[in-house]
């Protein structure tokens, strides 16, 4: 039946666990995962409550295709109100946890309230328990997973947990599953910590059944697998991972460098995908192999290791093992934006992000902001505990990654995120954020469509909620980009609701997702219907934000990107043309000049 038609609801305040049927009326309007969780969030909480208060609701949601043979079927989403932005937060992750939750028999897990003491949730199919977490509170993500598997004598269980950063409310703490996959952005791990929930350990042996027409589903899956197998973009992702992008952005002039002061980084070739594959002076090669998430026939994930003689780990044998390696966003955030060209230092900082449960993008961009503040004299060596917080200092990167992860010293300030840090030290203009969330690895002035996507993303600056990349690479201007931005936002909101990964769009169009849903799910699922579910989701996210108190004034970029011309590269001289793009975008969306969906738009989407 592709949906399990069952939800697990846990009231952490009262310690009550209940199961309820999935609302199929809503599933038919929002598909699953991101969309359906948004609907449940909207119906279950008051958007005005503080994100870190017990009134916030934290939802883990799978999609109807999660745990099926559709390629990349390991996705789940974490949806809540975000502590970095005060807006809706929606982060999805791969690995194997999401499929396991589905195999245990649930479409969704809704966590409410706040436990009086640290706990973890143990789900073994229908047996669900809230258990004391005293023995793992204060532990890293990696130790938590090891302890849970050993304590329950279940090496096959899957774990999603938070680290010390999440326990202490680091604003961009994430939820890490399977050691190095993460619902990374928007501080969903901080919300989990605020609820005194350390981990969710799941074992599922029920499986997922396709009732509609298993043979038709397998035929579609065979075809869509083949499309991916033959696709050149997919082959690039498999071989080089997402970090192939660093070379493109460097060449194009869109690679954020030195806190977005520059768009090209002189050390780019030391941290890119080829550098990961090249032996260093002592013959050490950073990249070991590639790795897939559940059900994924792309396998873009990187498994790397650090040179044992590198200063970061030379005396720390506990880090001599392999783990998740650099992807584009980590390479930019732990590399170019901080001016770091040391691949082992960046890889080590990446390890620390996973081990302590933090979003590398927000951490790296916040550190870059702190480095600029330090170089301007607004932050001093006294503030940093003696650390030379200069661009290009790999020791500053790894020390601050560790201090933020363990919430010590100046790491507590880095844990505030760029917006709060820059305000604290008197230079709010240096925070490279939208709605309080840090930019990903693309400069808005060089990629105008990306900039509009950042501005209008409902979770704050994010590169994953729209796709205007082809248009941006074709043309550095702004005209004609509002429409593909809006259209791709709707498509991606739908794709994020299926349980599959957007990297499949290298080979698949929305119609290919629609035919997989149609073969697996009850009812008729045309491409148009799927797209409308995405548009509905987008507008409901916007409604959540408006009700939470955000306004049109939050749809903006930092002064640097609106006023300072981009210094080099293809788009040299550009600033971001937001004032020209935003009105067109609002109109295409069916929103008023105030950025509020009109009654007609709401009615058309069934949101009145």
């Amino acid at each position, binding site marked *: 039946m592709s949906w399990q038609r069952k939800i697990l609801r846990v009231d952490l305040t009262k310690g009550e666990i209940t199961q309820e049927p999935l609302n199929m009326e809503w599933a038919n309007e929002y598909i699953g995962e991101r969309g359906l969780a948004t609907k449940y969030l909207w119906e279950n909480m008051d958007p005005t409550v503080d994100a870190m208060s017990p009134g916030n609701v934290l939802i883990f949601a799978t999609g109807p295709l999660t*745990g*099926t*043979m559709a*390629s990349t079927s390991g996705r789940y989403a974490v949806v809540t109100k975000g502590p970095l932005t005060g807006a809706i937060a929606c982060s999805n992750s791969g690995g*194997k946890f999401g499929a396991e939750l589905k*195999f245990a028999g649930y479409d969704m897990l809704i966590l409410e309230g706040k436990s009086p003491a640290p706990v973890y949730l143990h789900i073994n199919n229908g047996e669900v328990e809230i258990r004391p977490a005293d023995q793992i509170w204060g532990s890293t993500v990696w130790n938590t997973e090891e302890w849970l598997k050993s304590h329950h004598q279940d090496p*096959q269980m899957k774990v999603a947990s938070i680290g010390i950063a999440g326990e202490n409310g680091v604003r961009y703490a994430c939820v890490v599953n399977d*050691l*190095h996959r993460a619902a990374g952005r928007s501080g969903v791990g901080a919300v989990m910590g605020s609820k005194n929930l350390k981990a969710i350990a799941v074992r*599922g*042996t*029920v*499986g*997922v*059944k*396709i009732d509609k027409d*298993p043979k038709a589903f*397998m035929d579609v899956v065979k075809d869509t*697998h083949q499309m991916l*197998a033959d696709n050149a973009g997919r082959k690039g992702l498999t071989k080089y991972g997402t970090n192939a992008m660093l070379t493109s952005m460097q060449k194009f002039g869109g690679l954020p460098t030195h806190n977005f002061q520059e768009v090209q980084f002189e050390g780019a070739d030391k941290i890119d995908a080829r550098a990961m594959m090249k032996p260093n002076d002592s013959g050490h090669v950073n990249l*070991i*192999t*590639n*790795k*897939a*998430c*559940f*059900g*994924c*026939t792309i*396998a873009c*994930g990187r*498994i790397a*290791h650090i040179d044992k003689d590198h200063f970061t780990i030379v005396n720390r044998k506990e880090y001599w*093992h*392999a*783990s*998740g390696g650099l992807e584009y966003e980590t390479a930019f955030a732990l590399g170019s934006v901080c001016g770091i060209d040391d691949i082992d230092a960046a890889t080590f900082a990446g390890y620390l992000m996973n081990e302590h449960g933090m979003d590398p993008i927000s951490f790296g961009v916040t550190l870059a902001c702190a480095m600029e503040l330090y170089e301007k004299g607004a932050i001093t060596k006294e503030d940093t505990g003696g650390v030379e917080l200069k661009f290009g200092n790999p020791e500053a990167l790894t020390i601050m990654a560790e201090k933020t992860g363990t919430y010590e010293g100046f790491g507590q300030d880095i844990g505030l995120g760029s917006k709060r840090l820059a305000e604290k030290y008197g230079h709010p203009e240096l925070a490279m954020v939208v709605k309080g969330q840090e930019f990903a690895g693309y400069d808005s002035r060089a990629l105008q469509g990306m900039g509009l996507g950042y501005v209008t993303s409902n979770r704050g600056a994010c590169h994953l909620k729209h796709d205007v990349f082809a248009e941006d690479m074709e043309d550095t201007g702004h005209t004609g980009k509002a429409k593909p931005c809006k259209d791709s936002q709707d498509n991606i909101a739908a794709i994020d609701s299926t349980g599959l990964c957007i990297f499949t769009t290298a080979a698949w169009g929305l119609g290919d997702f629609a035919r997989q849903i149609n073969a697996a799910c009850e009812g008729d699922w045309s491409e148009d219907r799927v797209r409308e579910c995405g548009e509905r989701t987008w507008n409901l996210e916007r409604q959540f934000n408006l009700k939470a108190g955000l306004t049109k004034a939050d749809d903006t970029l930092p002064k640097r990107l609106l006023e300072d011309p981009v210094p080099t590269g293809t788009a040299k001289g550009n600033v971001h043309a937001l004032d020209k793009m935003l009105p067109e975008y609002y109109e295409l969306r069916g929103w008023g000049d105030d950025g509020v969906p009109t009654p007609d738009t709401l009615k058309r989407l069934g949101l009145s």
Partner: protein
Amino acid sequence: MHKALVIDPDKCTSCLQCEMACSFEHEGVFNPAKSRIKIFEFEHGKRSIPYTCTQCAEAWCMHACPVEAITVNLSTGAKEVNPDVCVGCKVCTIACPFGTVNYESDSGKVAKCDLCGGDPQCAEVCPTDAITYVEADWTGYDKMRDSAVRAHS
């Protein structure tokens, strides 16, 4: 000639398509817990190793079975469990030196790889050819060729 599954762990990405295909073929459900082939991950995913029954010629499981529930499929060479005969005594699970025959409490029977009657679905769906189905007498052919190249390059 019979064919055999050949496993090359260096090619495995741990996507688990094989586990889903196996459970779908045998149980009609996507459920790695019901798969007769398993992927084992080591050191944060540095190595992912598929493992399943190698269909021993003188199969310990088959000889140990007190009710002759495990028999040879003459066309594939697979040692197959006949669930109508299996009494769930689990002696075969003890006899197997490799752990590749396992008891399923849902059915009260044991389950093991049966090569899907000659069209093993794990090999069919593996996106990286980490699992292939080749001539049983030449399972070492590719490895031998690679070694030959290494020895003379």
